[in-house]
């Protein structure tokens, strides 16, 4: 098992290395000289050269790369040329909004996927099953931003039961005392139930819009796994022992069906945490996604580059966590096949 963990960690380091090289190369070949961008079109070529020298763009590539990556891991992510603030500060300010939305969306997506997969596979329910499968197709076919607009039209413009695209809280509401800077959690910590409710209402529509395509993917995966596992002979054996249908299902089908879903869950969480540029845009969500959206428009490459790298690192970390989780909970990974007698 030690070996398994070592291999996974090593693989993750490799993946991060690959991601950094890729991000580095992409930024070097993209059109637009950063020095020129920083100094503006009227700057002299001497000034551009000087700045190039100052930020090290005239150094050999490997030196540049080394500087770039050691800066990255020390948290020196550079400065946004458009407003001069440090990228670290900009991202730090906006990360809690994205993380809160991601976690909320992840939880409701998982719950909905598990619930519906169970509903459509436990016992033979052809009609429910068909409806669930149809619904999941819908999720696949609908672009998330379109769904976001649809949700806004129905629940905000027409029914007036959920807030519109006004960010994390209504205009009059004040943010709760900052602890985690996730408003729902901070509101609960501060005991401000009103604020909590307000923050939660603001999460619902973007959470749904963000989760829909992953929901479709997860529900189909879970459904297939559950169907497959519930046909396994060991389920029949468990029933043959005298176990009630649900007990046999819960004890033997569920764990075996969920195990392969861990990987998918990790991917989905990673995707959510990386933020959705479009969804945040539609809902005016003040998260990393909106920041990056603006940065792309302004060719603010320090932000974009950091964002790419951060997402890659986070993705790798989430997957590493999933792999390690396997090693802990799946006996077939934990214990070698060849037992020593």
């Amino acid at each position, binding site marked *: 098992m030690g070996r398994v963990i070592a291999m996974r960690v090593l693989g993750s380091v490799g993946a991060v290395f690959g991601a950094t090289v890729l991000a580095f190369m992409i930024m070097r070949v993209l059109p637009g000289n950063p020095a020129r961008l920083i100094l503006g079109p009227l700057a002299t070529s001497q000034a551009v050269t000087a700045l190039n020298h100052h930020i090290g763009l005239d150094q050999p590539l490997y030196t540049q790369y080394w500087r770039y990556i050691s800066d990255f891991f020390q948290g020196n992510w550079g400065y946004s040329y458009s407003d001069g603030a440090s990228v670290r500060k900009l991202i730090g300010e906006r990360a809690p909004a994205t993380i809160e939305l991601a976690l909320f969306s992840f939880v409701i997506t998982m719950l909905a996927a598990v619930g519906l997969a169970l509903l459509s596979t436990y016992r033979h329910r052809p009609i429910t099953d068909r409806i669930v499968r149809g619904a999941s197709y819908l999720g696949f076919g609908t672009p998330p931003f379109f769904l976001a607009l649809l949700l806004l039209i129905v629940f905000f413009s027409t029914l007036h039961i959920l807030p519109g695209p006004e960010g994390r809280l209504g205009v009059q509401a004040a943010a709760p005392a900052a602890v985690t800077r996730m408003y729902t959690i901070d509101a609960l910590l501060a005991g401000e139930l009103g604020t909590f409710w307000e923050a939660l209402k603001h999460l619902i529509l973007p959470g749904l819009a963000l989760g829909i395509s992953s929901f479709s993917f997860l529900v189909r995966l879970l459904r297939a796994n559950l169907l497959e596992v519930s046909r396994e002979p060991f389920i029949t054996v468990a029933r043959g022992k*005298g176990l009630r249908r649900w007990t046999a299902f819960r004890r033997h089908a569920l764990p075996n069906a969920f195990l392969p879903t861990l990987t998918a869950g990790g991917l989905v969480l990673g995707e959510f945490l990386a933020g959705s540029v479009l969804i945040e845009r539609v809902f005016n969500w003040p998260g990393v996604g909106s920041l990056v959206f603006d940065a792309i428009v302004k060719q603010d490459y320090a932000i974009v580059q950091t964002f790419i790298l951060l997402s890659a690192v986070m993705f790798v970390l989430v997957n590493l966590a999933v792999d390690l989780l396997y090693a802990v909970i799946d*006996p077939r990974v934990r214990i070698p096949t060849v037992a020593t007698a």
Partner: protein
Amino acid sequence: MDELALSVRNLSTVYDTGGSVVHAVRDVSFDLRRTERLGVVGESGSGKSALALSILGLIEPPGRVVEGEIVLGGRDISKLSDRQLGAVRGKEIALVLQDPSSALDPVKTIGSQIVEALTVHEPDLRRAAVRRRAAELLREVDISQAERRLDDYPHQYSGGMRQRVAIAIAIANNPRVLIADEPTTALDVTTQAQVLALLDRLVDEHRTAVILITHNLGIVSDFCDSVAVMYAGRFVETSGVDHIFVAPTHPYSEALLKCVPNPERLAEGPLPAISGFPPDLSQLPSGCSFAPRCPVGRDLPQCHEQAPVPHRVSGPAGEASVECHFAEQRIREVAV
């Protein structure tokens, strides 16, 4: 030997798959006495596994048992609810399946899977006592270092050992009837011999009646007292075990026995294979379901039009019940 352990009457099971209805078990009746070992022989798709699941009430939708009485220890269990059946399954009637690698839950320890078989019927047992009993069961099926090996997972056991565990689970509550569906098919020949010997010992000790489902006539000879040959969902020939090897009366039984490679008959040229295929159970022919492949009745209108009723015949190796229009005539021919 006279006490009835299980009596099945007119059991029929179908799978309703929307477009077509598959008749997996068709009007099967039989009696199983205490300590009797009945071999059910058939090829894939003959309905033998569906029969096992039907008796246990484990047919899952879209399948369902449409008719029949299953009297176990004097009580008809066919009309019981799933909850009531739960108290019968594993307690009075137990199941061993073919593939030992998939019959155990891969993420639960061997011990917990045996314990479960005990506690489901006796939830008040103390933990230590259940564990002790589980270890005893492992010892009973000849697994050494039983206490320690309770905490192993299935993938740490060999195929033969897994099948022993499956047997331990089945006999945990001393059932009246054990249904074993191809219990040795996935095992090596030498392991198979050991598992049969183990079953021998256990069912003798516990006075268990056994239904052994197999496609292997050799295993029937090695293990069983009586035999039922299953074709297209029906028992086409039932008899004591020797009869089927001495005087196979139904043309299908005879053909099945003959197409087993026999080096003694090398000189006779090609193996007498059965022509054609087993019938589609959703579109059964009228008349005898074996008629299209039958060397006797293939061209006889009677066989294609009229379903044969069971004929009781008496041959050199005992009596048999044969679903063939020509049973009497044939038993005279084969009994030379």
